[in-house]
């Protein structure tokens, strides 16, 4: 798909998005370890604010949503609503082992097991909890995806490629 000709204002907006994305954090029932690592990113030691990355409280101002935790049953609908409030283009980072596959909590009765069951995820950050360095790496990966998607005009090119990888996995859960 050819890139659309970009006006100056469009180029300015794209540059601003890549140069300083705003993130919002959503805790979907986690043990808080990932949250304090994200907040440690904002602190003087790792300081992602010098890159222009601001942590905003409201989803309406954000470009990137960071989801911590495996989703509990109560937070599932709220997570979906928060995700819908974020304006396009939006990216989701699922943090930790919990975001990928429920981590240590596999098989528990009050959780949804995967963030992917509720909202589409773009980047996974590995660790339990991921170190602040790895979180910054995940945000930078997200920015690279943003740049590529702007060239291709959106996210669809990635989704068509990975349809065969996104078939539902059949899991056996012990209770």
């Amino acid at each position, binding site marked *: 798909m050819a890139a659309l000709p970009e006006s100056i204002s469009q180029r300015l907006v794209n540059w601003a998005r890549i140069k300083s994305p705003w993130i*919002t*954090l*959503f*805790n*979907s*029932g*986690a*043990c*808080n*370890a*990932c*949250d*304090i*690592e994200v*907040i*440690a990113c*904002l*602190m*003087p*030691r790792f300081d992602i604010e010098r890159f222009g990355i601001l*942590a905003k*409280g*409201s989803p309406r101002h954000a470009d990137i949503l960071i989801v*911590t*935790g*495996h989703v*509990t049953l*109560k*937070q599932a609908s709220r997570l979906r609503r928060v995700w819908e409030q974020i304006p396009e283009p939006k990216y989701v980072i699922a943090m930790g082992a919990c975001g990928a596959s429920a*981590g*240590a*909590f596999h*098989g*528990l*009765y*009050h*959780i949804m097991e995967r963030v992917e069951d509720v909202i589409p995820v773009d980047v996974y950050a590995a660790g*339990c*909890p991921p*170190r602040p360095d790895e979180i910054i790496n995940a945000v930078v990966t997200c920015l690279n995806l943003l740049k590529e998607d702007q060239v291709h005009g959106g996210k669809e090119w990635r989704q068509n490629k990975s349809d065969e990888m996104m078939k539902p996995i059949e899991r056996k859960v*012990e209770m």
Partner: protein
Amino acid sequence: MPIGPHHPALKEPVNFRVIADGEKIVRLELDLSYNHRGIEKAAEQRDFIRVLPLLERVCGICSHSHSSAFAKGIEEIMQIEIPPRAQYIRTIIAELERMHSHLLWLGVAAHEIGFNTLFMWTWRDRELVQDTLEEMSGNRVHYGMNEVGGVRCDLTPHQVSTALERLPFLEERIYQYVDMVNAQQTLLLRFKGVGKLTREEVLKYGAVGPTARASGVDYDARRDDPYFVYTEVPWNVVTDTNGDVYGRTCVRIGELRESASIVRYCLENLPEGPVRVNAPKIAPEGEIFSRYEAPRGELAHFIRTNGTNKVERVDIRTPTLANWTSVAMCLVDQNLADIPVIVAAIDPCLSCTSRITLISTPGRKPGIVTFDELRKRGQTYCQEQGPP
């Protein structure tokens, strides 16, 4: 109004409904289901090696507390003694965890009143504690040091000496926080007289930890039910008589000083020897009530075993649950503006991402307010009121 901060600090999901009359609070109701995962049920299906990582992740800030309380309970049922070096290492990690938790709390409480400089300073100092923990255990949070029968890995002499080198800097910073708490007008204005609990109220509502010790109630599970090496190390219980948020701040800073001295003593007097014993795979039938002093208060694990390699029942009572009744009671008749400060003062260890809905006196429409706006509202309210 359901309170639910969606703000970058203090990320815990809890929802409690505050029914307010104008600016004064009338009643408080609680809803804890955001974070419930069903850990107690899952712990019944994992054997003693696999259940410790699960119990560690009950809470990210006091993870060592949960696994230590469980491990020491199981060791007592199995009737095995862990070697002295393992006990010293467990104590060192426990006190380092207490330091990092109190520094975290100090930053978050400062953030609640808008004092972001202190937030940045305390979290920067906290990085030193995290570095020490990372060198010793391999991870900044969720150390995984405990095993039934001892400790997973040993401390090398190099690790001990680097930790000892970091301690003087930390102790000097803690003294600066003591001066700051006594002198800074912003802090004193927002903390003094707010959320006061008398001694009788603390006993009646069952508060634990620094919240209780700030009102003069002298309970500390490290002294009353001693475990690890707290009978050998010289240390003091820190209490205060103020009973309000200022008193709780003073208690926590006092505990920071005590923890630093306990860590120093343990690092200097670490005995030689093995760090673990071989524990049997199967625990005999038994029942134990294991108490532990987590950074937030007294943690109680009720453990019952049934002669297999899995635990039959583990019933966990976290200190934050014990403190919620006292928060609900002491918020009545306080200003809306003080909610963030009082809630933060008990150091909640749930995840609070609820949104605040204001339900004023009956007849008026409810509106939704975020915790950020409530915090700003509190700050402007206090600025308008002026210094007392």
